[in-house]
């Protein structure tokens, strides 16, 4: 008990803090709900199947988000395929393998700093390195790699946090049974930290899907009325990677363009595109949460 504070007052402070906390939650969730409601109210009338299957158009009633949806999904796929394995592997290396010396200390500080670099800087870096120096086209591959680099530090930091939460005794137990370092990581550390890693992956991908600035820098388009070539072909080897070098647009860019149009009917289109973007983000997150749930259920310590 704190000296000089009467029990009645302590209880009062307790109740006051509870009230403050509850009020803040209501305020923040209320704001979010109001924003979402407003977005859905503006966008819902435009959310027809035609909107999802049409290309952009100067006529607001005929404009759609087909190319933007495909572009967003394609770019996110490249981002996930590059950033997630690389980020998780880096996290494992830094936590489980790397010696703790000044070199790893510098790397650690840099990764923490990189996680806070503004996205436009990543865009400029990608323009200079990927487009100008390496000669990549302004295409889906470049966009995916750019966003991959952007979220890589987030994935690394989240992976390390998740791994660090695993009790040292687990590793020692594995070593005691003669497991190698890789076996320990593969069969114990990784499965147990999977739910934390997946949470990091959700945050990283959710950040990437809403990014506009770096994609504009590397040349995302605003008007594109055709889709990238299909990844599946009818002749051997049945898989084609040419879609990677296709020009593209993404949902946030389409939204931004519509919001700035003079005709108010385009603003409704922007709201509808916002709902679509939110739906894609939420379903992506739902998938990760499902995986996380299953990985948690499998753990029995």
């Amino acid at each position, binding site marked *: 008990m704190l000296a000089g504070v009467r029990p009645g007052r302590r209880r009062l402070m307790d109740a006051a803090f509870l009230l403050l906390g509850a009020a803040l939650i209501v305020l923040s969730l209320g704001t979010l709900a109001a924003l979402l409601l407003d977005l859905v109210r503006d966008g819902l009338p435009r959310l027809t199947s035609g909107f999802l299957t049409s290309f952009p158009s100067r006529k607001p009633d005929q404009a759609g988000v087909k190319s933007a949806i495909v572009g967003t999904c394609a770019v996110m796929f490249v981002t996930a395929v590059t950033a997630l394995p690389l980020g998780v592997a880096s996290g494992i290396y830094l936590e489980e393998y790397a010696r703790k010396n000044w070199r790893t200390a510098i790397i650690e500080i840099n990764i923490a700093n990189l996680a806070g670099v503004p996205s436009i800087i990543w865009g400029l870096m990608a323009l200079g390195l990927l487009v100008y120096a390496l000669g990549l086209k302004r295409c889906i591959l470049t966009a995916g790699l750019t966003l991959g680099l952007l979220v890589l530090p987030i994935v690394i930091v989240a992976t390390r946090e998740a791994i660090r939460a695993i009790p040292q005794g687990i590793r020692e137990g594995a070593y005691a049974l003669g497991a190698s370092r890789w076996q320990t990581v593969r069969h114990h550390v990784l499965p147990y930290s999977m739910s934390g890693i997946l949470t990091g992956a959700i945050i990283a991908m959710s950040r990437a899907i809403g990014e506009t600035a770096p994609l504009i820098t590397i040349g995302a388009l605003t008007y594109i009325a055709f889709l990238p070539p299909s990844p599946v072909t009818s002749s051997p080897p049945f898989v084609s990677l*040419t879609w990677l070098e296709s020009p593209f647009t993404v949902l946030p860019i389409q939204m931004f363009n519509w*919001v700035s149009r003079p005709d108010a009917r385009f603003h409704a289109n922007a709201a509808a595109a916002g709902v679509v973007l939110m739906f894609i983000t939420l379903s992506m997150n739902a998938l990760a949460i499902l995986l996380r749930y299953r990985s948690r259920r499998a753990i029995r310590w």
Partner: protein
Amino acid sequence: MTHKVMRQGAATLVLLGWFAGTTFGQATVRIDGSSTVYPITEAVAEEFMSANPGMQVVVGISGTGGGFKKFYRGETDISNASRPIQVAEMEECKKAGIEYIELPIAFDALTVMINPANTFVTSLTIEDLRTIWSPEAQGKILKWSQVRSEWPDQPLTLYGAGADSGTFDYFTEAVTGKAKSSRGDFTASEDDNVLVQGISKDKNALGYFGFAYYIENKDKLKAVPIVNHENKPVTPSEASVMDGSYTPLSRPIFIYVNRKSLDRPEIRKFVEFYLKEGPALTKEVRYVPLPADAYQKGMERVAKGQIGTAFGGHSETGLHIDELLKRPLSTEPRK
């Protein structure tokens, strides 16, 4: 083990080589540049693609300057520009061996707006605008009565284009005589809809933005007639912009075509389509088309491959379209 590593290495090299070696979009018309020109080019692209299935047109928005950067790197075939090409850009084009054909394609009129509740302003002269917008007015000209003594002693709130836009460049050049020279204490936005909102809710407001935004919001805003060089107050309208009497706040906007790209049939076809269908589509997206002979002249430039600019690398305000079309073209910057 080593074999596996070597095989993987070789595969990676092949993959990298394939990325570096392929060039996408040989059958694609690649366009980028100004957001002011974008709605017209988008409309033309849409119509062109529905008239010519199998041909692909892509349009980006990276601003007039950003568009030219891609243009002289050879990454685009056509550049949308809300101002003429400038000296530095002409030199970059020359260095890169890029020859360009300058085609005026429409008018953009800047409109000075007030709140409909404002009844005392019936017209503004360029001198009035200079009093209001010059850098010296910052923090000093804060009331309507300071602009003209017969106007009421009410606060003056200002709305204008963001400093990165071509609209800002053109307005400041036309009003103060120097691009980007403006007072800084006003509500600035790159998004003209924000300005529309602001002016429609503030009875002391004055602001400027593109004509298309005024047309869409006629019920919420009042356009101020601007006194032209003949001392006549002129309201911005399709007619007054086209006949050149709404001056100096109207300007031609352009597309620049890479001459070498014109050798590709789809580019030539697209440019010809642009000049033929452009006027009707321009009207549809709320811009003002040029007089018919301007498009005729454009066709001629394309047919004869006449390269160069009529401006010598410098922006001008209050230039009549007829005079612009009569001028000789040159790729040499004018001193």
